[in-house]
């Protein structure tokens, strides 16, 4: 399904992608576009600092309205976990003890490294509140790009293994202190630490019951094609292609989900007449003529114009080589990925202003209101 239709119809639009392909920018640009017609939130995980400034989001902050109907929220895993614990702690005294325990510090450190767990929970609460028509998610930079989607399944396995139910009977767990299992565990960890774990878990059995409910609800939303769509963002670089193919295979074959669109970011389209510039390299007489023409057209002195022509030839040659590679790479990708393809041409500067986001969204989706081909004429190989 085309991105434009997803943004008009779905409740949740997810962007997946391997690292460094500009997922965050694409997600923000798509959300900006959608906000022209629907109340939209982009949940962003790790924006470049200047983009975060442009969106006005700060770590740990509540959602902010960037422009009318366009809201942004940045995920802070540690803060989200603290919030969750605070909500369920039976008393301030217990809360203080939990926050001071080594177990909790380690747990929150670990969560800081696995944003997908917290992202999933935060996302669930946002959807539950129903404040937005559409939520756009920029997924975390996971070890594996599918970890975000696989999170729920992993947690459900934990619940189903019975481990949680066993551990959350505090009496049973505390009795471990002198038993056989305690001796086994003591080979791994200290008694003091085990007491902290028991303390934590005993206090929060209600939290884990709720968590199980949330995890199952979230999984149901993710696989519901009426409500949710999945997109892959990629670059056209040589290295990105097998990574994106791998990601696509995992999503479609292992998780059995469908990929709606594939967005090729920072694409260098073939441009008209570039070979003719490259040909100047071989043709000294014409090159001299070109210097004169540039002088006449721009009023530059001959020295500058000559430097320009020499550099233009080298840069054009470089551009041609890259654009040809991009074309080849994307063709290989299109042969193995079955989804709607969208192209965003490379821009001279990194995007970190609202203006930049608007430009990206116009490349991707056309101007709001006018249904237009987002693919540059020569970009669709």
């Amino acid at each position, binding site marked *: 399904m085309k991105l434009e239709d997803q943004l008009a119809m779905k409740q949740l639009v997810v962007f997946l992608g*391997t*690292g*460094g*392909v500009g997922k965050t920018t694409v997600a923000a640009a798509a959300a900006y576009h959608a906000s022209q017609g629907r109340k939209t939130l982009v949940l962003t995980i790790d924006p*470049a600092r200047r983009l975060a400034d442009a969106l006005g989001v700060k770590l740990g902050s509540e959602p902010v309205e960037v422009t009318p109907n366009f809201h942004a929220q940045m995920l802070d895993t540690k803060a989200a976990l603290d919030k969750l614990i605070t909500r369920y702690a039976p008393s301030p005294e217990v809360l203080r003890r939990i926050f001071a325990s*080594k177990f909790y510090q*380690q747990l929150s*450190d670990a969560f800081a*490294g696995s*944003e997908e*767990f917290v992202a999933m929970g935060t996302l669930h609460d946002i959807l539950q509140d129903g404040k937005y028509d559409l939520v756009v998610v920029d997924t975390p*930079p996971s070890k594996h790009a599918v970890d975000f989607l696989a999170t729920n399944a*992993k947690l459900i396995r*934990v619940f*189903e*293994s019975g*481990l949680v139910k066993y551990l959350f009977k505090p009496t049973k767990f505390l009795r471990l202190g002198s038993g056989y299992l305690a001796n*086994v565990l*003591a*080979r*791994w*960890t200290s008694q003091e*630490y085990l007491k902290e774990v028991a303390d934590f878990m005993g206090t929060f059995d209600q939290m884990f019951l709720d968590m199980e409910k949330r995890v199952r609800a979230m999984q149901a939303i993710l696989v519901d094609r009426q409500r949710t769509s999945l997109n892959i963002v990629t*670059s056209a670089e*040589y*290295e990105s292609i*097998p*990574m994106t*193919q*791998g990601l696509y295979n995992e999503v479609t074959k292992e998780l059995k989900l469908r990929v709606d669109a594939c967005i090729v970011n920072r694409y260098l389209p073939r*441009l*008209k*007449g*570039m070979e*003719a510039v490259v040909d100047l390299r071989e043709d000294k007489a*014409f090159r001299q003529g*070109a210097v004169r*023409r*540039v002088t*006449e*057209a*721009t009023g*530059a002195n001959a020295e*500058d*114009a000559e*430097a*320009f022509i020499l*550099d*233009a030839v*080298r*840069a*054009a040659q*470089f*551009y041609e080589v890259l654009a*040809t*590679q991009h074309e080849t790479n994307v063709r290989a990708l299109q042969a193995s990925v079955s989804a709607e393809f969208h192209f965003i041409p*490379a821009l*001279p*500067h*990194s995007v970190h202003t609202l203006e930049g986001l608007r430009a990206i969204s116009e490349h991707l989706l056309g101007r709001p209101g006018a249904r237009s081909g987002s693919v540059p004429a020569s970009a669709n190989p």
Partner: protein
Amino acid sequence: MAGPRLSILLGKGGVGRTTVATALAAGLASQGKRVLLLGAVSNADVEARLRNEARGIQLQGRLEFREVNSRALVDELARTILAMGPMTDFILKHPAYDSMVGIMPGVHELALLNLLYNLQKGNEFDHIILDGPATGHGLHFLEAPEKSSPIMAGKLRERAEAIRAMLQDPAATEMIVVTTAEEMPVRETLELAAAIRRGGFHLEHVVVNRWLPAVLDHPGAARVLRSLAEDEAQRAKLSRSIAHKSRINVDQLVTALTLVKGQRDEALEHRGTLESLQVPLSIVPLIPDPEGRLMKVWDALALKPREVGA
């Protein structure tokens, strides 16, 4: 120094870390070293392609790829520590163990480090290269032994401390950060470099990958480009004057040049930031053509006789 040398490559996803790791491995093997390349992030498609590229290279030594099977490593670690005979199998097969391994913090990192430790004690290789996890995970990876040591007991704790000592010994281990000259990768490189130093590890080298060639640096050329980019009338005049002689499209040319120039300027700025780290930099040019790419990257890596800059 006893045992093989260990190089750990870290860096943000998408900067070409795996390519640099493979080029380093292939280059060392071409010089007669026995090299093991370990991939912390397994991706069959990427690996197949790199194996294929490395196949064409004349090796004086030996190059072995090994995919890191995280789960098997955790089991191996558990066996070492538990040492309970038949009971061990019972525990490893239990669904509770299985599900815990999926979510337990730090256990995968520790298991991988345990593998490195065992390999480093062996004599099968001269050089072990770990194509490490991406930055965020890279930090947790390096911190795993320290973070987990206080909560662990017995053998596991001893092992974690031995691993940490190995990682901090500059004679045994070096950290190499791979980046591109772009905002986010550079920012993560700075964070990573700070964490590496804070943790008492040795940052050997920063590799700046996909470096753009020096085009449009001439101030006069840049002035002409800006003037054309800003003034449609100038472009139109040049188009008319050139139209009967050539198929050159002035508008498209100016678009392409502005793009290359903009990226070049940003790259120079970011390189300046990286130089402030005062760590040797290798500048690896962007190599669009896959043919012979690995050896070109190896040639650009200043990791052999050390030197700074391009």
